[in-house]
């Protein structure tokens, strides 16, 4: 099995916490993993991405080739489109619909949605809203991970295990909130795929 994921967002949105959870889930399954991140200047409000590769065989390149990603997982709608050339035919575009507007020429929300809907396989989810309803706005990234989880070749339980590993230090409440967020994202994706 092999899953190649492009994680996308804006510097400061915390895509690396998603990456860390997937990483833990992969380790739980004894899988190989390579994950290239962006540090430095772009972290100051610029476009950021992370290339995440999981496989049961040894992985060669840290970078995913163009046209080879199984999933684009974006915590920001416009950013989900920036990496389309990396998505393989039949791959899934999973994106948050809450925009992060820090540039003057940010496009209209409807135009962005229209582009997203051109994809054959997409999940567009208002993760911020779902997270707020669960009482924890900060869990929106985990809602996003839940929404992308059906498209990984990994069991849902391994994601739950990843959450427990990553958030365990912060106490039972935080773990439970994030587990709820993960399930809420998963349910949305199952209903809307």
């Amino acid at each position: 099995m092999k899953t190649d994921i492009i994680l996308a967002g804006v510097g400061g949105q915390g895509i690396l916490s998603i990456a860390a959870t997937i990483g833990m889930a992969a380790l739980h399954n004894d899988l190989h993993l390579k994950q290239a991140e962006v540090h430095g200047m772009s972290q100051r409000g610029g476009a950021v991405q992370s290339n995440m590769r999981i496989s049961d065989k040894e992985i060669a390149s840290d970078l995913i080739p163009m046209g080879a990603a199984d999933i684009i997982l974006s915590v920001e709608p416009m950013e989900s489109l920036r990496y389309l050339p990396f998505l393989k035919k039949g791959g899934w575009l999973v994106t948050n619909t809450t925009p992060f507007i820090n540039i003057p020429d940010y496009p209209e929300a409807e135009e962005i949605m229209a582009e997203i809907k051109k994809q054959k396989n997409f999940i567009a989810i208002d993760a911020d809203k779902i997270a707020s309803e669960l009482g924890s706005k900060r869990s929106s990234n985990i809602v996003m991970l839940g929404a992308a989880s059906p498209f990984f070749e990994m069991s849902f339980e391994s994601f739950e295990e990843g959450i427990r590993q990553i958030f365990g230090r912060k106490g039972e409440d935080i773990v439970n909130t994030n587990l709820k967020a993960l399930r809420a994202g998963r349910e949305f994706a199952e209903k809307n795929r």
Partner: protein
Amino acid sequence: MQKLLLLGDEAIAQGALDGGMSGIYAYPGTPSTEITEYVQGSKFATEKNIHSQWSANEKTAMESALGMSYAGKRSMVCMKHVGLNVAADAFVNSSITGVNGGLIIVSADDPSMHSSQNEQDSRFYANFAMIPVLEPSNQQEAYEMAYYGFELSEKFKLPVMIRITTRLAHSRAGVETLELKKQNEVSLPSNLRQFVLLPAIARKNYKTLLANQAGIEEASEQSKYNKYIDGSDKKIGVITTGIAYNYLMENFQDKELNNPVIKICQYPIPRNMVMKMVEECDKILVIEEGAPIIEESLKGYQEAGTPIVGRLDGTLPRDGELNPNLVAKALGHETILDGTIPELVKNRPPSMCVGCGHIDAYEALNLAIADYGVGRVFADIGCYTLGALPPYNAINSCVDMGASITMAKGAADAGLVPSVAVIGDSTFTHSGMTGLIDCVYEKSPVTIIISDNFTTGMTGGQDSKALGKIEDICRGIGVEPDHIRVLKPLKKNMDEMVQIMKEELAYNGVSVIIPRRQCVQTMKNKKLAQQLINLNLK
């Protein structure tokens, strides 16, 4: 044996810790910062009293590491590629002194300039200094090379370079660790004049360095990190260096690779291995991350012989980072090079944070300088370089650490008066102070803005050596106390800030203006909060 999930940078740090390192020295610089941060965060390193404090700049770091080596212990110094320019004097001469305890220099290159001013290749420096280089192709090798690099250094009594690039530095993978080695005891060099580079001694040491070359080349030939992987199709042979090997192999995940391949991860170039390929193959494709160093050296040998292709003839791009698709094209495979991104996707460049003090300082400066006209603000390396972008459009240069002050001086010497420098607190103590002495010595008409946010911001909020000392340093250097002005950069203080800047711009001598407010990214840093209280800065 333990399996850890580590960034390339972290793998180097862990390898050095397990390999018996007694101290690490560095100034923060993307993509090298996380090596030292990992040691700073290591409980083991704290227990064993392993040195890991930041240095003022890369030169002081390099020299301290050399000093620790003199005293017989294993040391590491880390920097980004342009930091090696700062450390170059000490670096090149360290190959003439040689080492006592093992010494590793890690230089992290940044092809495609993700966070840098150029994409220079540190292998040139190592070649110039005639020392071995280790260039890992993955995180496991990064770990092992730090571990094994100390032995290599002690075997040849030479410093060893580990060269990485951004991609490996900031990519995570599983790493298996090796058995922990003990630190060396303090021991003096057997020859107490080894490090005295008087010409007579330097000439002798240089002959030793030259005589050592055959040995380090043989070590490359025998290295387990250099491999000749034979293949039956000799129409083309492929030479890869470092992580370029991965991009080659990515293209053969579901295809047979029948061509001979050389994977080079240790230098000097293993000449016999390469010559065997040149003799056997009709054509050579060289895939190296960074500058075409191997390609150029082969072209030298082979002007009329086997064709050598790579970055120099356009088979691969002359600049920028490699990726699997570029390598696929070089191999003649079908591939995608630039897919279409929907037109509505706009660029999202990095920007200064909401609430950042640099923003208020620039707004005041733009107002204060308006009467003199644009084109006279020389800035430096740090978050405030983003003042070049709209809506501020506030600066006209960013060249190297410290260049703001000295370029402003040169421009003032040429008659561009007033000239303004903008520099951060940490950059000031890195390389700004010496330029300030030049200004004071000549009473140059320059206005120097030291935008003080109590941290090294761009690289993630590391300690600043300037903390609580800037006025003392400026007075000590000889800036007139009346022309050292401290401001609090806030919107509500705008009128006062503009007024003070106008006064100092009009002064025909050296002025230092210090807009001072804590970096918003460091608000959760408890250690810094306590320091600020102790220094009465909060």
